[in-house]
């Protein structure tokens, strides 16, 4: 198995479209710097896909590092833990970058970083215990989407998972936080892979890494080959760099040739995809019991003084993180949470670091502004670039009629907003924005009776 993947430069099945985005992995060789705990953290109750958590603590209460401070009784959710020790100052509310409001817990540090007694390696006897432990760790998909991991690892009864895919593609420009994980914590990644593969009963696990990270590929291959439980079922797959290969459905198609049907989940085609950092975190959690309270962030962009990788406490205001990285230049005009292709532009730096963040980018004036859109010249570049074979320009045109039925027929709901269409558009049209508007129109449309 391994030898096949070693030879071919671009192993894997063909996928449609994509874009040759610039890599700009400037911080690839920047060792992760641990940022000292901040004086104050603000922790939103919504750092995952699903139902928001409810605070378990009250204002004035003291909390310790790793203590569970919020949870939900809804299924799709993940508990939240305190990243510092100190006093709960307030339970408030804030506007999240995604546009919805969420409750927050503000904690003031006592500077002690006292560990909570709750922290101990979870006792795991069997699958149910394991899933419970994963839930208690607070882990969500660290690649950006923030889907609670325990749900992913617990597919419905009767679903056969044969392939575990580790997403080390990291195809977004600038971001190197997965890369640093593969380099710095390769053992954790591989340990996690073997453990999760066993848990899922998968026949094989594929660690997929893009070819612009040769050192990571080499490192992980070496560790896999030297791993004591190595039975050849875990392979490292080198992918030709292509955006958006790290998109879950695209990656599944690339690695297995399977297409996740519309409205279905990866488990329906026998796959579970996990981010490299998520799986390494799980390996560490199983041995230490320390829940998810810190996150590695790539700090980069033309307006950042000292680009680097920072390990920061969740809840640290972005401004503090940027300040730690030498501050941002006076002409900074845009701060992005996440990568430049799918990240969210922030109105300011008071937003805290979230669980699923992997980068904070700041750009100077020239890079911050996009071209004014001009008329579509029907060049078809967006059609060629769409990884999901949509026709973005068609949705853009149909948008004028605001007809939810036509928009849905045009496949707008399939769009994952990867940004390839807008990126390649020579007329600078805001095609992703049109897709989002189209989705909104479809969602807001009164549901019709099925014919």
């Amino acid at each position, binding site marked *: 198995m391994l030898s096949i993947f070693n030879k071919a430069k671009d192993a894997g099945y063909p996928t449609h479209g994509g874009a040759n985005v610039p890599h700009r992995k400037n911080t690839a060789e920047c060792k992760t710097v641990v940022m000292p705990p901040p004086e104050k953290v603000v922790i939103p109750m919504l750092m995952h896909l699903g139902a928001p958590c409810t605070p378990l603590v009250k204002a004035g209460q003291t909390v310790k590092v790793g203590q569970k401070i919020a949870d939900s009784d809804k299924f799709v959710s993940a508990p939240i833990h305190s990243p510092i020790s100190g006093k709960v100052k307030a339970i408030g509310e804030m506007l999240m970058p995604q546009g919805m409001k969420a409750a927050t817990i503000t904690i003031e540090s006592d500077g002690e970083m006292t560990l909570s007694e709750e922290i101990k390696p979870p006792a795991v006897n069997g699958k149910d215990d394991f899933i419970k432990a994963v839930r208690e760790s607070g882990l969500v998909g660290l690649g950006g989407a923030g889907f609670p991991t325990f749900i992913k690892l617990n597919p419905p009864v009767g679903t056969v998972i044969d392939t575990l895919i580790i997403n080390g593609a990291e195809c977004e420009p600038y971001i190197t936080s997965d890369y640093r994980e593969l380099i710095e914590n390769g053992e954790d990644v591989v340990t996690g892979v073997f453990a999760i593969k066993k848990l899922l009963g998968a026949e094989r696990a594929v660690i997929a890494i893009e070819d612009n990270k040769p050192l990571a590929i080499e490192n992980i291959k070496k560790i896999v080959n030297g791993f004591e439980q190595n039975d050849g079922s875990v392979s490292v797959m080198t992918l030709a760099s292509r955006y958006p290969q790290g998109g879950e459905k695209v990656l599944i198609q690339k690695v297995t040739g399977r297409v996740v049907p519309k409205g279905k989940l990866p488990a329906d085609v026998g796959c579970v995809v996990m981010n490299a950092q998520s799986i390494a975190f799980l390996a560490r959690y199983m041995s230490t019991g320390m829940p998810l309270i810190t996150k590695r962030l790539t700090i980069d962009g033309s307006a950042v003084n000292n680009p680097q990788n920072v390990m920061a406490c969740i809840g640290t205001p972005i401004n503090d993180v940027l300040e730690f990285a030498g501050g941002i230049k006076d002409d900074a*005009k845009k701060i992005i949470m996440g990568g430049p292709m799918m990240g969210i532009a922030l*109105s300011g730096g008071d937003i805290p670091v979230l669980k699923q963040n992997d980068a904070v980018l700041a750009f100077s004036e020239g890079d911050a502004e996009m*071209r004014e859109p001009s008329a579509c010249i029907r060049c078809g570049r967006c059609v060629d670039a769409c990884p*999901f*074979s949509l026709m973005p*320009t068609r949705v853009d045109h149909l948008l004028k009629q605001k007809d939810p039925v036509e928009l849905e027929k045009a496949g707008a709901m399939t769009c994952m907003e990867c940004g390839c269409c807008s990126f390649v558009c020579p007329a600078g049209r*805001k095609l992703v924005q049109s897709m*989002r508007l189209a989705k909104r129109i479809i969602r807001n449309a009164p549901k019709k009776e099925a014919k």
Partner: protein
Amino acid sequence: MNNTMIVSSSPHLQHTNTTRGIMLDVIISLVPAFIAATVFFGWIVPFVTVVATAACVFAEWCARKILKRENTISDLSAAVTGLILALNLPPTLDSVWMGALGGVIAVVVVKQLFGGLGQNFANPAMVGRIVLMVSFPTLMTTWVNPLAWISGPVDAVSSATPLAIVGSGTTEGLPSFLNMAIGMRTGCMGETSAIALLIGGIYLCIKRVIKPTIPVCFIGTVAAVTIILDLFGVKGMTPDLFGVQILSGGLFLGAIYMATDYVTSPITPWGRVIFGIGCGLVTVIIRYFAALPEGVSYAILLMNLLTPHIENLTRPKPFGEPREKKQKGGDRS
């Protein structure tokens, strides 16, 4: 830090490609064809070109002004229309005013009245040419022998293009295959040199301005159908005449520069294939069975009109959607 940050929808990166850059690439790719044309037909080529291009740009500027719309001449699309129109005119003095008139028709009637760049249903330069062909059939088919500008005016005016010669049922006076390929023959200024046009086409493909799909399907279909018709003995074709069919009559100019017009050709991959094949078929049908010796322009015009339908029929299936169930009578199980 000032606190006025730009908040915009992702992505926050753009490719360096712009509409203007693409048009500039088209202009660059036309250089070999212009050099060839100037060598064969002399000073009249740059003269007609400048006038036609200026007319197009000026017409676009005026039209946008009158329509009270933002000015768009800087996207260079009007200039490209002018250049391609000029290539489609005979190398005579009359082409100067015809170029100006055709340019105005192309830009104002065909493009701006339909909403400007991206909205026109047919290629402006081509409709400009067709209008001139219909209005001034004699002037538009008054040909000049190549290199006559050097040898003197004695044998300047020639009666027929290679296709017209073939159309009249003879092979006498046909240029050799090599001369046809380099452009030593009568014809429109830019259509004669297949090699120069091919260089431009390859440049456009390398710069990824166009995909080779449409030109290859177009020219390939003309070649294939011509061979098939030969086998059935239609007009008693010989290998010599096969070269004439492929290399003459503006096939290369049309296939590389006019059929590939973004606005009026399908944006779907299979749509492009159908479009190219359709252009080729109609071209041959007109050449062989209609009264006209030349069919490329009309073929492209017809396919332009079919483009929206071709596109609707060839829409790609979105990722993860079940295979389309065609609503045929008995198919609903």
